[in-house]
């Protein structure tokens, strides 16, 4: 199968490399030429526009930042829609608002192009190790066509429902992840301010009901003070904006998510936006008057 891939950032690059490693022939486009460098020896072909990529592929995967970027790649001049290729499948792994995904899907379907929203969870580590979780919304037959590709990039692949349902699942995922991240940060800071060894607390908690992958992985990194980004704070802020704006439109109160979103507003405001989202622990420490 000829596969297009657009968006070779922190997540997209390892995802595309895993497809290349599995023997797939890739067609690429990137805004910055440097992003194409890691694909030099994979036999991938580079094109001048997303439309050119679409002309050469049966499936185009995208992984960009936000809804305006997806719209740009899909619907702007030189975008995928311009290829006018009926039956083409576009699978977008960006995290955008469910309503935006449905809207883009409708616009593409007018050109006979099938759009799947296929956001992922698992961070850069999951992308590199091909252990991502895919949450997919859209046409079931198109999903079955793309499934083998998802399985090369991830471990858990679920067709959640109709167009937009993948993004709804991702929003749910971010509610749980962001609040848990804050909970782990608060617990470890509570231990620290109480004069108790956070590492021992974490070890104790890992055996009980407070166990979570976030306590294990991110809790460990918080203790080591290793802020190298898997998932950057500004992206968490963006995802929580999507969650809360959707809740606003739905008429749904999310007090916990709203509280945590304020911490991520502060992260970006104080210049920690490029660090991993687990660096939120620094703000909890700052609020608690703990010198860093």
């Amino acid at each position, binding site marked *: 199968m000829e596969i297009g891939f657009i968006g070779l950032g922190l997540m997209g690059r390892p995802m595309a490399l895993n497809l290349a490693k599995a023997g797939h022939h890739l067609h690429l486009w990137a805004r910055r030429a440097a992003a194409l460098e890691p694909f030099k020896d994979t036999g991938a072909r580079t094109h001048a526009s997303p439309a050119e990529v679409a002309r050469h592929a049966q499936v185009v995967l995208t992984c960009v930042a936000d809804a305006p970027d997806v719209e740009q790649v899909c619907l702007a001049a030189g975008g995928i829609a311009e290829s006018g290729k009926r039956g083409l499948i576009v699978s977008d792994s960006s995290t955008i608002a469910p309503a935006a995904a449905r809207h883009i899907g409708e616009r593409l379907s007018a050109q006979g192009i099938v759009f799947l929203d296929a956001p992922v969870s698992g961070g850069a580590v999951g992308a590199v190790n091909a252990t991502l979780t895919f949450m997919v919304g859209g046409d079931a037959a198109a999903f079955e066509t793309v499934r083998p590709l998802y399985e090369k990039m991830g471990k858990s692949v679920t067709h959640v429902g109709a167009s937009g349902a993948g993004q709804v699942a991702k929003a749910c995922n971010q509610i749980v992840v962001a609040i848990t991240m804050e909970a782990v940060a608060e617990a470890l800071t509570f231990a620290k301010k109480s004069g108790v060894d956070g590492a021992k607390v974490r070890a104790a908690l890992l055996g009980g009901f407070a166990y979570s992958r976030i306590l294990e992985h991110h809790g460990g990194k918080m203790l080591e003070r290793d802020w190298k980004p898997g998932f950057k704070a500004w992206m968490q802020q963006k995802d929580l904006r999507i969650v809360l*704006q959707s809740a*606003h439109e739905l*008429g*749904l*109160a999310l007090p916990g998510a709203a509280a945590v979103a304020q911490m991520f*507003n502060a992260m970006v*405001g104080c210049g920690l936006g490029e660090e991993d989202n687990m660096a939120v622990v620094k703000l909890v420490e700052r609020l608690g008057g703990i010198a860093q």
Partner: protein
Amino acid sequence: MKLGFIGLGVMGRPMALNLVRAGHELSVYARRAQAAQPLLDAGARCCPSPAEVAAAAQVIFAMVTTGDDVEDIAFGQRGILEGARPGSVLVVTSTIAPAQARAIGERLAAHGIEMLDAPVSGGERGAIEASLAIMVGGKAEVLDRVRPLLDALGKTVVHVGATGAGQVAKACNQMIMVACIEACAEAMALAARSGVDPGRVRQALSGGSAASRVLDFFGTKMVERDFAAGVQARLHHKDFGILMNEAVHLGTPLPVVAQVWQQLNALMAHGWGRDDTSSLLRVLEGLAQPCGCP
């Protein structure tokens, strides 16, 4: 002076009437023709589109609901742009996002039309009594030209800063006001749950440090369980959507306001959007009720 007024709702109608009473020649436009009737009775002239209003006026007021509504009357078909002469002034009294106010101002400036963002606070009563607080963003010399008009609408007119600054001030106003309504609701709920008369509590508080115009007005509505709209809660909900999005772009944490926003979401879910924002009390009461759900 020849003036125009677009948007004759709960706020716009009394504001427009005050301009007519101040002796100005007023041309009006409203989407629903019957909204203009009280103005026509007072001697205003009705126009079929914003363009005609703009053609007949030196200063045009807009009091519509959303930023997109403002864009529509300014740049849409038969919009202000099609009728306005260079040098005329658009005064936007709607509450919209600061960034959108700036963008609209720039687009108008390219055609030689001045814009002030001049959102108001004080509710329907303030509009009727011409006692509104008006917060203005834009050029000082443009404000000087229209200040006598604003003085006919409100009691305090403050030049806050450049275009958009009026909207920033309005966002600050909404944050304090609705957070204060929520605080009053929580106090009333605590009093009632304690078996103490909320009316007496409100009365006692009004002499002390917790006294505020919100406690006075909205507190009384809560005590009397009069949830009919002074200000429709859906408009506060709309404003909170705008300002919380602004907080994301600015990287500013707003912990309390974010919680109040969630209470407003719950209020909307109960279908009380067209009732008064004092309905925040009913949201709390609902949460504390024994749950009959399975």
